[in-house]
Structure formats: structure tokens, C-alpha cells
């Protein structure tokens, strides 16, 4: 009997220790994602699902430099500016009722389907690509605990992130190449005038 009680206690402890919380990994109509260079951004086009990937980044402290990829992905939907990784997604290391900080990274499919952790310190430079990271949100994951059954954390909307974010071009022309292009254009103009 004593043995059974010990086994039950250990079982409860392990269940609690490894319990995973739930988050809703999708954005809302009020938190759309856009792409483009500053001053020339546009909401991700409709009817092109799978053209962009998104990854969840988490941090216990929420301090810059402490976010890591949580291994959870999402893709854009057929609806403009929308993405989803599903509702009730479990996140390793984020227990129910536990508060953590989070960000969402987004990138165009030509950068690959998997998140590269080096992008956290050095954004990708793949030509014709797009990459961006959302603002920082914070909230507690849903799930059942001894204190009750918490609803899933909505990463966007409500008390989560209340604005969308932009994916910027990954290949920005360098100043030297911009200058060379300018010189070329000027030379062409001079050549035409002389002619």
C-alpha cells in the first residue's frame, strides 16, 4: 500500500514537472503581418498560403538576447496578412499557468522552412527574401493545474500582442553599390546629352 502511494506521488510529481501549457499560435484581424521596405509595406497578399513561415521565440526573463526558438512553426494562410500554427499548441518548457515572454519571427519561404537561430543575432541576407520579428508579448500558458483550468494563451489580441509586424527585405543594396549605380546613371545621362 505504502509502495502504491509512493508510486502515485512520484507519478503526480512527474506529470506536474513535465506538464505543457497551451497557446493559440495565430494572429487576428487586428494584428496582420505585412512585408516590404520601410515606407513601402503591404499586408501579406491573400491566396498564397505557405509563402511565409513563422516561428515562436520564448524567454523566461523577456530580456533582449534571451529569446530562443521554441520549436513551434506556423505558416501564412490564404487570407491576407494571416498566419496560423494552430490552436492549443504545446510549447516545450512552458507549463500551464506559467508566465513567459514571447516573440514571433516571420520569414519568406525562400529562406527555408526551418528557423535558423543565428538569425536572432544576424538577420538573414538571402536575396529577395523577407524577415522580421514581432514585438514582445507576455502571458501565461493555458492548461490544467491544481489552481484550475486556464484557457489557452492567445499570443495575439487581448492582453497579448496588439499589433502586427513587418517582414523587411533581407537583401538591402550596400551603399557602395548604390553609389556605383548612381554613377552609371549619371554617365548615361551625360553620354546622351553629348550625343
Amino acid at each position, binding site marked *: 500500500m505504502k509502495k502504491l502511494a509512493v508510486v502515485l506521488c512520484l507519478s503526480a510529481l512527474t506529470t506536474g514537472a513535465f506538464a505543457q501549457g497551451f497557446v493559440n499560435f495565430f494572429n487576428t484581424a487586428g494584428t496582420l503581418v505585412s512585408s516590404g521596405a520601410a515606407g513601402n509595406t503591404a499586408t501579406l497578399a491573400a491566396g498564397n498560403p505557405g509563402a511565409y513561415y513563422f516561428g515562436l521565440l520564448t524567454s523566461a526573463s523577456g530580456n533582449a538576447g534571451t529569446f530562443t526558438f521554441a520549436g513551434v512553426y506556423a505558416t501564412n494562410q490564404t487570407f491576407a496578412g494571416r498566419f496560423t500554427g494552430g490552436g492549443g499548441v504545446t510549447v516545450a518548457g512552458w507549463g500551464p499557468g506559467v508566465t513567459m515572454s514571447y516573440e514571433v519571427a516571420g520569414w519568406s519561404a525562400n529562406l527555408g522552412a526551418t528557423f535558423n537561430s543565428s538569425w536572432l543575432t544576424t538577420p538573414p541576407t538571402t536575396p529577395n527574401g523577407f524577415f522580421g520579428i514581432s514585438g514582445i508579448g507576455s502571458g501565461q500558458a493555458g492548461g490544467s493545474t491544481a489552481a484550475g483550468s486556464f*484557457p489557452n494563451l492567445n499570443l495575439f489580441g487581448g492582453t497579448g500582442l496588439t499589433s502586427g509586424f513587418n517582414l523587411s527585405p533581407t537583401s538591402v543594396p550596400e551603399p557602395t553599390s548604390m553609389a556605383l549605380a548612381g554613377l552609371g546613371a549619371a554617365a548615361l545621362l551625360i553620354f546622351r546629352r553629348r550625343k
Partner: protein
Amino acid sequence: MAQSSVYSLNIVGYAIVPLPAGYSLMANPLSAGATNGAAEIGLTITGEQILTWNGKGFNAVLYDPTTIGWQDLSGNPSVPPSLPPGTGFFFFNPNAATNVTFVGQVVPNPSSTNKLSLPAGYSLVGSALPATVTNITSAPVSLPAITGMQVLAWTGSGYDSRLYDPTTIGWQDLNGNAKTAPTYTIGEGFFFFNPGSATTWPQSLP
């Protein structure tokens, strides 16, 4: 001295709501005019628990007259929460299934409007008006249809979540599959997710 007649416009009634064993998500559909949960519910069961939502987590109280009566889950003396109409709460029934009989006055009064606060994020609520409807946004329950809102009904072991987004496919589950609008049954509580800034849920008697 002549006395004028005094009329009351209050509507008084009762509602019998099933109470299964274990956790139920409820909301008081009638105002008993009392100030504590025990009197509002009109039922006290040894070992019962009432869990109310504080915006981030639950405040739980337990009733055990064999010890100190109302107490928190650590055994410290406590008082049952106020549960006016519109406030959702979990009720833990430690015994076999039974019924709860809510008795009291209908809120709002005729010709008046009740406005329930819906802050950003989650709130635990129920219809202040005693009613059952097949679409929770239909009168007289009239939950406001907000783009991106979610209604989480308790299934007995988890939540049945419905998201409303007319910019996509309307009512859907959290994985984007089309669903019907949530129903609402008298005495039921539910989590409401407000994706925007704080608003209200106005209700008027038809």
C-alpha cells in the same frame, strides 16, 4: 389619508440548473440580492469549491462546515465571492449530480439595460438575463459579435473554443475549421476572449 398604490416592475423567478459531479462552469442568471456566493447560489454542499477569475488566475474558496466553514484552499478563513448575474464561476461539486435552483430577480429591470464589462483578454462571464438561445449573439442573450472574439464553453474536462472572424470564415474552431455559433443555456458560464480594447455587453429585456 389616501394612499397611492405601489407597483413593482421587478420580475422574480427561479431557474433549475443541472449540477454534475466535479467542475461546472456556471453563471448566476438571477439576482438574489445577496452579497455572497453561498446565498446567490442558494446551495451549500460540504466540500464544494467556488472558483472566480481575477483576470490572470482563479480565486478559490472551499466550504467545509466540519472544519472552519468557508476557507481558501490553504485552510485560511475566507468568504464566498459575490456572484451577481453576469459573473461566471467554476463550481466544484464533490458529490453525485444534483441541481441548483437559482432564485431571484431578473436583471435588468424592464425598460433598462444592463452593461457587463468585457475587458481586453479573457473574462469569465455569463448572460445576466436568464435565457437559452441557439446562437449566443441572438437576443435576448445578445453577446456582441466582435471580430476575433472567442467563446470557451466548458465540456466537463476542457474547453470547446469557438472563434468568430467574419473576415475569414465566420465561426470556427481554433484550427480554422468552420463551426456553428456557440449556443447558450441558462445558468451557463463561459470564458470570453476580447481581442481588442475593453468594451461592454449590453442586455435589455425584450
